[in-house]
């Protein structure tokens, strides 16, 4: 994008609108002034930095910077997910392995079959969307697994006492974790186009792309999110299951 006066006027208009809202809320004493101002400044700074970084990365012909950006995204996603369930053992390692494996597998398949062009301007934003959504699904799956195990410790131990292996004893809790983590994504897919027009499609249409082309791309990205999310949910709940037991099939996590 070229930085001309028109662009600057547009951004300033948007900032002016938010400033007006901030003034209004300060009069209503909602206690949101500081938070809204901070959010606005952070959004400006973070998105400008991202735009500058992406412009720089896209100009380079090398793949290494692209991979570096994706690696940083993965690390932050794993860290964020692990913080959500910080009391679970090895939450970061489990999240990293699950999000990495599922995202890389999904993105690779899409690149290999030619759906996703192997270019920075596609890989970074779409990769980011896949990693971000996979992170959310990973957090939901592990959080639900934790809740189920804490609430159903007696059931787990009753199964162990009957001679179940750890994975057999925890199987119903794993199923619930995987299922509940995928519900929001599946529901989103069901209402796609009926209730809401997702960001990617809206952006493409606004940028003047053919709506059909935008729809196809949106379907691709949603399929990637669902595939990657399902893989990460299955993988992370299974990996975490092992962490919750000793080698003698004793439940070591008590919440």
């Amino acid at each position, binding site marked *: 994008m070229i930085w001309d006066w028109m662009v600057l006027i547009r951004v300033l208009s948007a900032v002016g609108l938010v400033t007006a809202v901030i003034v209004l809320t300060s009069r209503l004493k909602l206690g949101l002034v500081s938070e809204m101002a901070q959010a606005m400044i952070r959004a400006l700074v973070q998105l400008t930095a991202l735009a500058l970084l992406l412009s720089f990365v896209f100009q380079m012909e090398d793949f290494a910077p692209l991979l570096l950006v994706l690696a940083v995204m993965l690390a932050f996603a794993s860290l964020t997910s692990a913080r959500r369930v910080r009391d679970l053992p090895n939450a970061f390692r489990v999240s990293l392995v699950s999000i990495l494996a599922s995202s890389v597998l999904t993105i690779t398949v899409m690149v290999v079959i030619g759906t996703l062009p192997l270019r920075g301007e596609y890989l970074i934003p779409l990769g980011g969307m896949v990693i971000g959504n996979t992170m959310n699904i990973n957090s939901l799956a592990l959080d639900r697994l934790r809740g189920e195990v804490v609430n159903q410790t*007696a*059931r787990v*131990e*009753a*199964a*162990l*006492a*009957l*001679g*179940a*292996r750890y994975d*057999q004893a925890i199987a*119903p809790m794993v199923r619930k974790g995987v299922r509940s983590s995928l519900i929001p994504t599946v529901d989103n897919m069901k209402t796609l186009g009926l209730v809401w027009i997702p960001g990617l499609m809206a952006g493409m249409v606004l940028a003047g792309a053919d709506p059909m082309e935008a729809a196809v791309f949106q379907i691709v990205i949603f399929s990637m999110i669902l595939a990657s999310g399902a893989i990460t949910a299955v993988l992370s709940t299974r990996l975490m299951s092992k962490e919750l037991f*000793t080698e*003698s*099939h*004793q*439940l070591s996590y008590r919440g």
Partner: protein
Amino acid sequence: MTENVWSGVTSCFELRKVSVTLNGNQVITRGDVEVRKGELLAVVGPSGAGKSTLLRCLNRLTEITTGEISFLGVPLHDIDPITLRRRVGMLFQLPVMFEGTVADNISYATTLGAPAKDVAEMLIKVGLDPSFANKNASTLSVGEQQRVCLARALVNSPEVLLMDEPTASLDPANTRLVEELMIRLKNEGITIVLVSHNMAQARRLGERVLLMKTGETMGTFPREEFFRDYGEEGNW
């Protein structure tokens, strides 16, 4: 199988200098006890004495910190925990039902590899009508659920049953039924270790009584001797 040279009785479990530390707390400081094969041993003592923990060590739901436990002469650590738990069944204070029907619950061990048993036969064995098989397990009364738990454990054909206050949440009628079942199972040759805070029950059922206090086994006594010395009021 090891012969106890002093009593001439075969040992089922032998615990030597057992201690258990959980989350930094020493729950059992010293456990020395012999459980004889085929007996019904009542374990009594004040709350927090470590009775339930001791029971959980016998099927390795809880790991001992120091000392040694052997089962029929074999150190517990030399037995695969899955195999051990199939041979040493357990009943908890509160019955735990898995999702599904009564038949699903009773067949649980079969899904893990135990030989299939006739559900109706198992229900009759614990005093329940075979028509219970298709009921949703969660709709049963606590007493009925506890008997389903017993039937579920018996599918593994265990040599030992560990019972952690199995009648604590039952009414007198169901308590009597479960006690009768315990006696019948003991007469069939199953060794039973029963943790109970109910001294009258310990007197009714226990052939010998193990007293535990503040994480220590204070000794195992013949029933009459124990109740002569301590009475039924728990004056320890």
